[in-house]
């Protein structure tokens, strides 16, 4: 869905678009790269596959190690991106088949139908209220439901409703109730032929699917959740009224974290460290001690990797607040009748003996994986990936955003695990390299 009054496809008679740069992904790295380029006079098309820009950061509670409110940092940047006259945003859209086109590149952009007219929708919740279907809310990682006619989430940008056609009963209640008549089931997908001088890949990462660690019981035991679910529970826009157990709505009083779930683990095909899990777990532990002062929090770890600025102090702060750290590898989690969980672990500091501990809520600190969408963008001229399937940085030291395709640059976690400040730095590098490349064409 176009979110800019400049160069909107609705205002263009042909399906041909021309911009200086295509930025794929509307998360923090995509926004940073787009703003840098736009503020230097380049025309940018940002293509986001989701219904809203904001990426994963917009859904977080706070950031480490400063404990600043994540949404308070993310929303002004989202707003700045959406309002910049040099940036055109297409949400709910996908890029296909980027290929060489003389000195530049061309691509197809497919805009999927949202079944709500962007220029008429006011973002009111009336269609949601009238919709009789509830499905799992992906923006709250299944902790609550959402309607089939829905505003994606509270801070969505653009704040425009959408119809989840796969889960719609076609009852027409939303259409009958919509005051500005914005619902339009006759909408169809649109295809655009795009010409650009450069491309920036800022597609972000995928979360490790916690159900792949079968021995931890995620998806089977209701009180085993993953860390993004906990971040949602801690956020001001949280799905529950407090941090509560999904099994019975009880306030937990003894929470465990299992670090390295899906990271540094060859058995699930991801041998590398995800770089963020230690710190976000310590962040959540500190926030939990603030939200639930009577709660005990234990973090089971292999190593604590507190390598960044202020990270070790943050770790020490967690310990001084009362977070318990146990160096041990969790072998298995079992559920008790009351929904509590027994963790069986190898206690590294006590001769490696097997120990059992009971907790009433377990958080799996899931790692990050490369976004597999990237290869699909480059069918004609495949882009090189590294051994872990992230976009390969051709010259990591001298030109960190350069990829194997001339004119295509990479930003943020598309090139490997990194935290938010490093993603922003990486996006800065990508935008500078893209700008230099475009200038070299003249």
């Amino acid at each position, binding site marked *: 869905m176009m979110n800019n009054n400049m160069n909107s496809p609705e205002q263009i008679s042909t399906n041909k678009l021309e911009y200086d740069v295509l930025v794929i992904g509307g998360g923090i790295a995509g926004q940073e790269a787009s703003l840098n380029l736009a503020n230097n006079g380049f025309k940018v098309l940002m293509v986001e596959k989701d219904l809203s820009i904001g990426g994963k950061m917009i859904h977080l509670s706070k950031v480490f190690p400063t404990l600043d409110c994540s949404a308070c940092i993310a929303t002004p940047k989202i707003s700045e991106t959406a309002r910049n006259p040099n940036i055109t945003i297409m949400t709910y859209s996908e890029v296909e088949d980027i290929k060489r086109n003389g000195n530049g590149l061309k691509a197809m952009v497919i805009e999927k139908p949202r079944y709500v007219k962007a220029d008429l929708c006011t973002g009111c919740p009336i269609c949601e209220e009238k919709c009789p*279907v*509830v499905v799992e809310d992906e923006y709250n990682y299944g902790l609550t439901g*959402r309607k089939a006619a829905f505003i994606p989430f509270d801070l969505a940008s653009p704040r425009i409703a959408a119809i989840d056609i796969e889960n719609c009963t076609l009852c027409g209640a939303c*259409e009958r109730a919509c005051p500005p008549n914005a619902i339009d089931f006759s909408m169809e997908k649109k295809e655009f032929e795009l010409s650009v001088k450069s491309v920036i890949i800022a597609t972000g990462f995928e979360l490790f699917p916690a159900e792949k660690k079968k021995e931890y019981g995620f998806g089977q035991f209701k009180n085993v959740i993953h860390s993004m679910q906990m971040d949602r529970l801690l956020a001001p826009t949280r799905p529950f009224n407090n941090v*509560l157990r999904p099994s019975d709505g009880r306030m937990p009083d003894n929470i465990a974290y299992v670090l390295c779930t899906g990271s540094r683990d060859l058995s699930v095909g991801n041998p590398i460290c995800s770089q963020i899990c230690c710190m976000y777990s310590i962040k959540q532990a500190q926030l939990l001690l603030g939200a639930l002062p009577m709660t005990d929090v234990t973090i089971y770890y292999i190593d604590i990797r507190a390598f960044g600025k202020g990270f070790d102090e943050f770790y020490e702060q967690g310990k001084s607040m009362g977070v318990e750290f146990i160096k041990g590898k969790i072998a298995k989690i079992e559920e008790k009748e009351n929904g509590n969980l027994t963790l069986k672990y190898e206690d590294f500091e006590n001769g490696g003996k097997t120990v059992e501990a009971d907790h009433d809520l377990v958080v799996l600190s899931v790692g990050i994986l490369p976004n597999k969408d990237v290869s699909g963008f480059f069918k004609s001229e495949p882009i090189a990936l590294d051994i872990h399937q992230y976009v390969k940085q051709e010259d990591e030291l001298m030109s960190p955003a350069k990829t194997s395709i001339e004119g295509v640059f990479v930003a943020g976690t598309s090139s490997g695990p990194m935290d938010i400040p490093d993603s922003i730095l990486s996006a800065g590098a990508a935008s500078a390299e893209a700008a230099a490349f475009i200038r070299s064409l003249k």
Partner: protein
Amino acid sequence: MTEEKKKQLTVTLMKEKRTVPDEVKEKSKKFVRMRKAIKASLKEGPKSIPQLVEEMKLPTDVVTYYVMSLRKFGDIAVGELDEDDEYYSYELPKK
């Protein structure tokens, strides 16, 4: 709604192209049933999730999911936390 607007509903066009799967119809029925049952129970006064579970004879996680969803949609409101600091009560919103 006027007859003219009824005729113009674009959902009729979609109905010609798509058949609604039974699973989706069932989801809709389930939500409507759950909303009715929870709201009817809360008419008697504020209740915690275990109290609703006891009454509705459904799995606790299912009741929790719908209570939290109804809270999000504004159909029910949060009441007091019990004296053991364990369970909140939920109630119908005050008008």
